[in-house]
């Protein structure tokens, strides 16, 4: 019995010490595909085991804040806005991009989306307009089409509390007042207030929006490209529009936590996930759209991704830091306008 216990302990020790570990905080989506495309090849190549901590942006940011003095996490995946919040809270360390061999292969917009090299963009998605071609007969071409009479009562916009909401408001301010960086977003708020009665609801998640399309409530809405595949699966006659004022571009970034204990492994991980092989595998499985310019995918995959020269060219990026500085004010203003 004693011998067995010793043997078991020895085995445990081998498991515990055998593979170096890297602690990665990320979303809980597509986990089996992440294992296939990232964890397994990463373990084979470097002998480093990836341990994931899962949750949405705000929960994971909260955890980082509470572990600030003694971080458990080495690498963290965030939407660009939350990465910016993490920087403001002093939770991240700048990345020495010269250590990343694949860095020169990614799009310029992905190289430093947060500023100060606090994060590297590893995937991109667009926000365009989707509409029902059987209900709206004329072609939709502009963000301004949300204000036309023939779609009134059948449209939805993202709530300001979504990642896309505040950026869309900046874009609308740009369209209607030629200035995206108005701290009051006066024009955008005024125009959305005009539209309020014509809006079914302000959606909070893409699954909620898909449901609204399926129920016939909504005919036209701004849609994130990563959910476009699910929209196509509804079987509804839908079209994706690249508006003349451009689509909005968003990146998800990967960052290194300040005080990370496995720094070397963290650099290897970041370099690995922006590499050609991983970016291609993730794109082919429709997990994430590539930022590595070398990745080429067939048309049937491309139509479900944020991909292709024209698509990428039409993307408009705004400075996320501007949102962080004004967000509280905008949410209050929004609540006052919508919920009164």
């Amino acid at each position, binding site marked *: 019995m004693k011998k067995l216990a010793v043997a078991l302990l020895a085995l445990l020790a081998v498991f515990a010490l055998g593979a170096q570990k890297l602690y990665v905080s990320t979303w809980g989506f597509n986990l089996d595909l992440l294992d296939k495309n990232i964890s397994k090849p990463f373990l084979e190549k470097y002998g480093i085991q990836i341990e994931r901590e899962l949750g*949405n942006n*705000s*929960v994971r*940011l*909260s955890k980082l804040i509470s572990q600030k003095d003694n971080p458990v996490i080495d690498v963290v995946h965030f939407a660009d806005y939350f990465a910016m*919040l993490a920087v403001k809270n002093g939770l991240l360390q700048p990345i020495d991009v010269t250590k990343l061999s694949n860095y020169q292969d990614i799009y310029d917009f992905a190289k430093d989306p947060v500023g100060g090299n606090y994060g590297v963009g590893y995937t991109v998605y667009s926000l365009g307009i989707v509409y029902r071609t059987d209900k709206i007969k004329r072609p939709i071409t502009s963000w301004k089409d949300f204000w036309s009479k023939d779609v009134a009562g059948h449209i939805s916009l993202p*709530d300001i*509390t979504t990642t896309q909401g505040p950026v869309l408001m900046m874009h609308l301010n740009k369209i209607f007042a030629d200035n995206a960086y108005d701290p009051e977003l006066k024009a955008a708020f005024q125009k959305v207030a005009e539209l309020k009665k014509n809006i*079914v*609801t*302000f959606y*909070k998640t893409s699954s*909620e929006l898909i*449901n609204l399309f399926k*129920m*016939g*409530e909504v005919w036209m809405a701004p849609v994130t490209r990563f959910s476009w595949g699910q929209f196509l699966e509804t079987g509804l006659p839908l079209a994706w529009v690249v508006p003349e004022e451009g689509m909005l571009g968003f990146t998800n970034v990967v960052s290194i936590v300040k005080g990370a204990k496995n720094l070397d492994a963290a650099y290897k991980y970041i370099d690995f996930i922006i590499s050609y092989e991983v970016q291609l595998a993730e794109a082919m499985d429709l997990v994430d759209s590539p930022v590595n310019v070398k990745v080429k995918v067939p048309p049937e995959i491309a139509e479900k991704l944020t991909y292709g020269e024209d698509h990428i060219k039409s993307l408009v990026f705004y400075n996320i830091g501007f949102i962080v500085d004004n*967000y*509280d004010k905008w*949410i*209050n203003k*929004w*609540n*006052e306008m*919508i*919920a*009164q």
Partner: protein
Amino acid sequence: MKKYVLLIPCLAFLIAFFIVPIFGMFVESIYQREKGWVAQRYLDFFKQRLSRTVYFRSLWMSLLVTLVALLIGYPAAMAVISVKSDSLRSLLMTLLVFPLMTNPVARTFSWLAVLGREGLINNLLLSLKILDSPVRLLYTRGAVFVGLLQLFLPLMIISLTSALENLPKDVPLAARSLGASSFKLFTKIYLPLTSEGIVTGSTLVFTGCITAYVTPAVLGGSRVLMLSTLLYQKASVTLDWTMATVIAMIMFLSTIAVNFLSRAFSTVGVRRWRKTSG
């Protein structure tokens, strides 16, 4: 002494996982490192017009749902109790409990199919030519009201049936034989003797309503902001935990206050009953 020993496990659990955290939250909501003990944050909350709107909307909605649940639930509970056949009565009870076994998220989402523009109600009214174009039912206060009522009505009925079951069967008979009218029977016998069930049911329904998140979020959306959805916004989007804590405390204190008031009312009722019938 022995009966208190039996309480220890439950008490230990409640102290560790309820009393201590609640107290900690309360302290956090009234203590500021720079200023010491202040009620500033509560004042800040009520100073905003929007917060007041949201607070009174939540309070009013929860009270209304509780009241309507009581008005619908009482006759239903009486009907269930009056069924003579045991098997039929237990079948009815199962049917009452049944909605509680389905997931509240699923129940809320099914309202989307009923209240939608192409949903059951609109289609029916359109085909009967009562309407000529669909009306907006979703994302209104009415939708939230209906959703909450359906969600919590069973709790009210269950509390009332158990109260009615405990009512001694010979008391109403005696009152009848002494010539009490149906109205008197109800106000003098049934109401006071089931007051405990009414208070319990009302507290359960009210607390459920004011803390419900999924129903106002799904059926009300951004337009019908309630305390729980505002709390979520503060905690999860702007990471303003201080304000989220204040909102949580306001919800908690309001629930305690309503429970206290309804209990006070019912004791007054029972005392009056004892006086008039004693």
